[in-house]
């Protein structure tokens, strides 16, 4: 029975796998391999020097710390927005729904300039915050604002289909069994949403880490304070220092890879949690 034939819905598994591998190789792996190859020019000692530089560390801290904070904010508020858009019917809902995608469509430079205009001390919001003694544009806070903006759609769009397919009878059953609202949310809804929420979080995170166009307009780009890692890469390129630029790229990739793997492990764990004792 070892040779039991599997019947698949669509034929041609071999062909499609080959195609998948070839396409992934061409579009993703080949450029990454070229990056690693370029980076290898500086050697291990060069890489360690690069990593030890205070400016590199400050930029990495800002890029990843900022992205993490921004994606956490997006996870909370994205969930809220997705919930409202799916669960309630109100005039203008479709328009709001369409607005969610705007950060996807807007050229990042335009987004950066618009955000800066808004949050600069002479802007509408920036002026109000300035009166309270809070500076947003040209500070690390500004970097965070831009990162929230570009990552926001990911959380909403990954949560929406899951929310739509959520079985309301479960909530009703929980309610009739005497669960409080907070219990229903924490024990019934959240476990089902968690995998999608984590996916949205991971996507928003990845996007925020790599974001350049919108951030540089609002960041102020001061070394050691508001300089993101992609800007350091651009600075190396301006000096025609390809190996170090590539090395920084590899370092960012490495960090991102570790984070994404951790998130996918978390996701797997959350799925198990969502399906009570099989």
């Amino acid at each position, binding site marked *: 029975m070892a040779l039991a034939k599997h019947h698949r819905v669509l034929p041609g598994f071999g062909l499609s796998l080959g195609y998948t591998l070839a396409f992934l190789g061409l579009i993703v792996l080949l450029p990454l391999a070229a990056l690693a190859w370029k980076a290898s020019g500086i050697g291990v000692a060069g890489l360690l020097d690069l990593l030890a530089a205070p400016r590199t560390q400050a930029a990495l801290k800002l890029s990843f710390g900022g992205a993490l904070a921004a994606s956490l904010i997006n996870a909370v508020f994205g969930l809220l927005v997705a919930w409202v858009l799916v669960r309630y019917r109100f005039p203008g809902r479709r328009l709001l729904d369409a607005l969610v995608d705007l950060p996807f469509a807007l050229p990042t430079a335009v987004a950066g300039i618009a955000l800066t205009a808004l949050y*600069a001390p002479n802007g509408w919001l920036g002026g109000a915050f300035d009166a309270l003694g809070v500076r947003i544009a040209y500070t690390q806070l500004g970097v965070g604002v831009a990162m929230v903006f570009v990552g926001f759609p990911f959380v909403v769009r990954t949560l929406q289909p899951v929310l739509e397919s959520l079985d309301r009878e479960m909530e009703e059953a929980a309610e009739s069994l005497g669960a409080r609202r907070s219990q229903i949310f924490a024990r019934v809804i959240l476990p089902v949403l968690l995998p999608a929420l984590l996916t949205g979080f991971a996507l928003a995170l990845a996007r925020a880490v790599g974001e350049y166009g919108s951030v*540089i307009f609002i960041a102020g*780009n001061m070394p050691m304070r508001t300089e993101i890692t992609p800007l350091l890469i651009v600075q190396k390129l*301006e000096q025609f220092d390809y190996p170090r630029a590539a090395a920084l790229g590899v370092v960012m990739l490495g960090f991102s890879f570790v984070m994404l793997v951790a998130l996918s492990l978390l996701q797997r764990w959350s799925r198990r949690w969502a399906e009570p004792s099989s």
Partner: protein
Amino acid sequence: MKVKALLVLLVLSAMLAVGVASARTITLLNVSYDPTRELYQDLNRAFVAQWKAQHGDNVVIRMSHGGSGTQARSVADGLPASVVTLALAYDIDAIADRGLLAKNWQQRLPDNASPYTSTIVFLVRKGNPKQIRDWPDLIRPGVQVITPNPKTSGGARWNFLAAWGYALQQPGGSEARARTFVHALFQHVPVLDTGARGATNTFAQRGIGDVLLAWESEALLAQSKLGKDRFDIVVPSVSILAEPPVAVVDANVAKAGNRAVAEAYLEFLYTPRAQDIAARHFYRPRLAQVTQKHAGQFPVVETFTIAQLFGDWRKAQAKFFADGGVFDQIGPGSQPAR
């Protein structure tokens, strides 16, 4: 008779056909930096008309604009530029390092291969409320200075070197004095945009800072576009002569077979006609007669060149702007050793 007439007609029409066919179309790609967009639109129109009148051929000039360093990388990596017209010689040197053009490219055309120039001036808010007259005023308490980041902007490197050169040339000036002055100057810089236009935007639209260090051409453009009633231009006592260079990319014109046109195109930039167009786009012309005509626009300013104070761009780049160089030592975020 009829046959003869027909024959004549045939020969004539054949000649005409040859004549039409010989009006070739020659394409040039000019890879330039950002603020020259409008300048080259006008220059190209004039050159195309002139070439058509003199040689009968149609020249099509395609343009590519972007940050000077980014553009240089594109050409070095294979963008088939016939000519490059960039913000500083270092960027063309980088292309020469790849063997795409002769290393002595800067000696192949007059005036360091820079047909037009500019200088670094101060753009201040109307009425000059902070009374900024010269370089030392920039480091007075309470004055904020806007300049892009020299690590990412070619224009900002001219700003940096202008400030350095000023301090160096003062009575009792020295490397140490220049270091102190430029370090103090960057203590007054609150934002480092990545490019010149970004810095202009920060200063003009966001209302940040009291003075913008800018190319004179950009300052005049900002004034004419955003309103004379909003900004004044202050010309310092001494400044740097910014020489944006041009060069034919040998390897690319050899491949495309359009060297003659490419060379004529760059030589055209030195003619009175082109010099006048440059002046109207706020670049200082090289020709004295054209300068005279636009004298009202370009106040006399004492300038120094890269060659006079720093040797050449390669040396300046290595000393000041390379990783760990002077800018990294004394710029924002640094802890300068005393």
